[in-house]
């Protein structure tokens, strides 16, 4: 009986088996890696906004406090996006004819709100609360980065559940004194571990319960 398979069939078979294995492993690897890439987390992506508002200029250069615009950060889940009126407190006096501010003036004149593109998007089943974080020692820049040096706001942290849990399991390295919450340039000092421990006590944080599902999901 003639041979059905030529001699190189073995090689082909090996290559196919190995290739298939590699494909499966690669696919699984991709599935593991992909969620951490910025393609999924949208980290460091700059989003086009209706007005090219610069935090670097306003928060960094002029030194305007975060809470001047994000008024509800200490009371509500949402930090709050300022109404057009807040922009116009200054811009009715300065840069009144700037081309860049035309949409803001139009919003005020027509009574139609500006439509900002969301940069930090959390899934709908996550109930994040700004107020409990800023009143319990987590500063703005811990999650949002040094916004005062960003001409365009981008998402610095991955905002994945694993990233949230890193801090919920062990908040001490990220805790600040109440006076430092809105300091964009805060950096942990060398004895942060020790200070963090004291701050845990100061704020009355029971970190052993911070990873309960019901803390963030309901």
């Amino acid at each position, binding site marked *: 009986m003639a041979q059905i398979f030529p001699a190189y069939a073995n090689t082909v078979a090996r290559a196919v088996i190995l290739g298939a294995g590699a494909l499966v492993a690669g696919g699984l690897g991709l599935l593991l890696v992909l969620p951490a890439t910025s393609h999924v987390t949208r980290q460091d992506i700059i989003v086009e906004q209706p007005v090219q508002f610069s935090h670097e200029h306003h928060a960094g250069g002029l030194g305007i406090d975060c809470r001047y615009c994000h008024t*509800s950060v200490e*009371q509500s889940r*949402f930090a709050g996006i300022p*109404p057009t009126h807040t922009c116009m407190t200054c811009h009715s006096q300065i840069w009144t004819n700037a081309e860049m501010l035309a949409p803001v003036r139009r919003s005020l004149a027509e009574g139609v709100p500006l*439509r900002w593109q969301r940069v930090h*998007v959390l899934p709908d089943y996550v109930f994040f609360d700004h107020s409990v974080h800023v009143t319990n020692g987590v500063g703005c820049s811990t999650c949002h980065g040094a916004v005062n040096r960003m001409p365009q706001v981008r998402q610095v942290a991955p905002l994945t559940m694993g990233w949230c849990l890193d801090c919920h399991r062990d908040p001490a390295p990220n805790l600040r004194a109440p006076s430092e919450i809105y300091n964009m340039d805060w950096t942990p000092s060398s004895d942060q571990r020790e200070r963090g421990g004291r701050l845990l006590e100061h704020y009355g944080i029971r970190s052993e319960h911070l990873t309960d599902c*019901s803390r963030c999901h*309901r």
Partner: protein
Amino acid sequence: MTDAPPLSRRQAALALIASAASLASCDKPEEEIIPYVEQPERVVPGVPLRFATSLPLNGYARGVLATVFEGRPVKLEGNPAHPASLGATDVFLEAELLSLYDPDRSRAVREGARIASWDAFLGALRPQIRHAESKGGHGLSLLTGHITSPTMLRLIAELRARLPGLAWHAHEAAGTGNSLAGAALAFGRPLAAVQRLDRAAVVLAIDADPLGPGPDQIRHGREFASRRSARRAGKPFSRLYVVEPAMTITGAKADHRLPLAPAELRDFAAALAIRLGGELSAPPLAPRAQAFLDAVLDDLRAHPGEAMVLAGEWQPPEVHALVHWINQRLGAPVDLIEPVGPDLAEAPAPLGALVEALREDRVDTLLILGANPAYDGPGDLRVAEALRASRAFTVHLGPWRDETAALCRWHLPETHPLEDWADLRATDGTASVCQPLIRPLYATRSAAWLLGVVLGRQDEGSHAAVRATWAARQGGNFEAWWRRVLHEGVVPESAAPPVAAPPARLPALPERPSVGGLTLVLRPDATVWDGRYANNAWLQECPKPLTRNVWGNAAQIAPVEAAARHITDGEMVRLELGDRSVEVPVMVRAGTAPGVLSLTLGHGRARAGAIGDGVGTDAYALRRAAMPWAMPGLVLGGLGRPGGLLREQPDQRLDGEARELFQTLSLSDFTARIPAAPPPPARPPSLNPDAVSDTHAWAMVIDTTLCIGCNACVIACQSENNVPVVGPEQVAGGRDMHWLRIDTYDVGPAEDPRPGFQPVPCMHCEHAPCEPVCPVAASVHDAEGLNVQVYNRCIGTRFCQANCPYKVRRFNWRGYADGQEYANQGAPVIAAQRNPEVTVRARGVMEKCTYCTQRISAARRASEREGREIADGEVVTACQAACPSRAIIFGDLTKPESGVAQLRQEPQHYALLGHLGTRPRTTYLAEVINPNPALEDGAT
């Protein structure tokens, strides 16, 4: 074949690949943040505001505190300062929210079927008003419901002063005509009776349902509960006797109940009066009724000043008069007040007079404000026919384009009570000012505006009209007074003062009806009332108390009557009364008096909307204006086919071991148990580690003695937790989504049922059987003892549901709230009702009661923000807040002084299926009843 182009297999495959590819390439959807241009004062995004207002039922106010997120009401709760809501709610109040966002609400002015404009309507109305003015108002008719609003009454009085010939008619399908007429018989003028159940030690209800649905349900429930709390500390415990034709909530809560047909009820009331010295003649009672009467009478006499007799609205005026006479003899704690509504001198005419005028062509212009007589008028008046044939200029103002709107020349969309200014009075006379909680969703106007137009004041809105009413009554600093009234939700000290009534006269008894056959007994419905809530999906899917019937109504008859006619439970039957007949499914219910068939109103609507159209049977067709509640001469015939009756988890008889599920004990047994220590909780050996709590330990205790099965908690839960409806087809398949159900058990002898209500939310077991079986750990415990369901982990194996002994888990078989909603429940406007603090669950996900974890979280976050502990009573679950009788108590077990911890020490405390070792956090207090020893031996 359909007209669609046939899709070849190749094309179908390509389409599949293309859609898969497009899905895979999709990034997260872009989201926008849209701030205000000018932020309204006090509005903080994400922080709800609460406002006080009132909502009407039959024109009577129940006070509301509404939770409003960014100008969008998402939850209604009772106003503790209001005497008719006392901080609690009823089903109608809770569900009014869904009516506000009903996609079927009328949005446009219509002339006939065509859409028209407000200007076009005003142009057409003006000549009509000029014509009426030239005739001194003759030919102008006004039809309303029952009105208590001081502003509306002022406007109507102004209208009458200007147009003396104006004919005002009022129609309320479930109104208070009989009781007022009865008081007029007894005292010479109509007076309203305010029964004080909290001051009564012995109560006899003659076909009365004070605990049942109605404008006074919440107050009655609270007052009843205040005399029925069995506690170690020892509180007075009242006794309740009920005689009635068909089982009501009050009958279910009675210590002794006797089913009697309407004619026997008349004799019973008469016999009671005779025994108290009344000079009447009545036929002798049946032996059982006689024994019952003897026992009741002794008990009533033994409690002077604390004994009370109640007559139901559906009893004829003569019986009401008789009961007034009896109550005077007993010194009963009943306050008599001037009727809340129009003064006697200006009382409106009944609907029948209007129909007559329409037939005789005496009406040129008819304004119908909110009423729907074409549907809820008695069948023998033939209102729809008269409206259709009339040549009058007919105008209908209402929130829906209903049966009456369709027969009128013009239909005007009315604002919802939550969208406009108004004022109302409660059943005890307390006035309140209602404020809008949301801008009108559509271009709608109010009844006050329309009356203003007829008065020639076109620009007067409701706000100006209501302020004008109160500014005229209130001197001094009106602005300060106004702001306080809006804040509190009630006008201080506005309750009607009790009047000193003259001695009651004994009435002549009505003729005893002698027609053979069954007596048809009509009642308002427990979930759709008189039909006005028929398009409310929450209420249609709310299981009616006792029968657990949903999406429709059913006739109830006694087993003996069914057997005599060879009718089986659930069969479709035909009811014939005179020349009219309807078909309806039948329920054979023990506890119904022989010779009686009871049926509820409010179903079978033709033009309610996408939810209510054609659901159930219209009982108004059989109704007669002369005797609206009980009609003898009914002929009943089985049709031999199934009636399509839908019941969610119907009531069960409990025998033998099953009695453990719903425990009952008599007051004497309870008292005997008091000295002993409470029974230790069942702790069978377990492999699970013991729950160790170093933080809060949330728990709930439900007192079944106090539960009146009213369903307020069920709808409150639905409203708070974004629980969707599933629709009748899904219910027929055994599916429903209610997180909280009220299990109804029958614990009496078969022929004489004694129903018991047991609300069942999640038990939050410390050793939860649902948790170890979840392959993805979506069902887990948190440190505070909550058994939490993590929706984003759940993969829908339903193992947890299978392993839950309490069957409290609900599975989203379809996208009930997320893309596959029932009927119009997916309309965008419905989304505005959703509570933003709670996830809207997707298809394929398990869900269940969370103990309102969002409310716990809100309290925890507030305490963390403010650096303090959560106070006792700070967390109130939605069901607890809603409960009229305060049967549900929630709190922290670790605090010994908390309500739950104390109730767990009561002698009648038990855990449902405690022997399974689940260690539930939700536990119960057994039902305590207070039987009369004289009636103990099998009598009743």
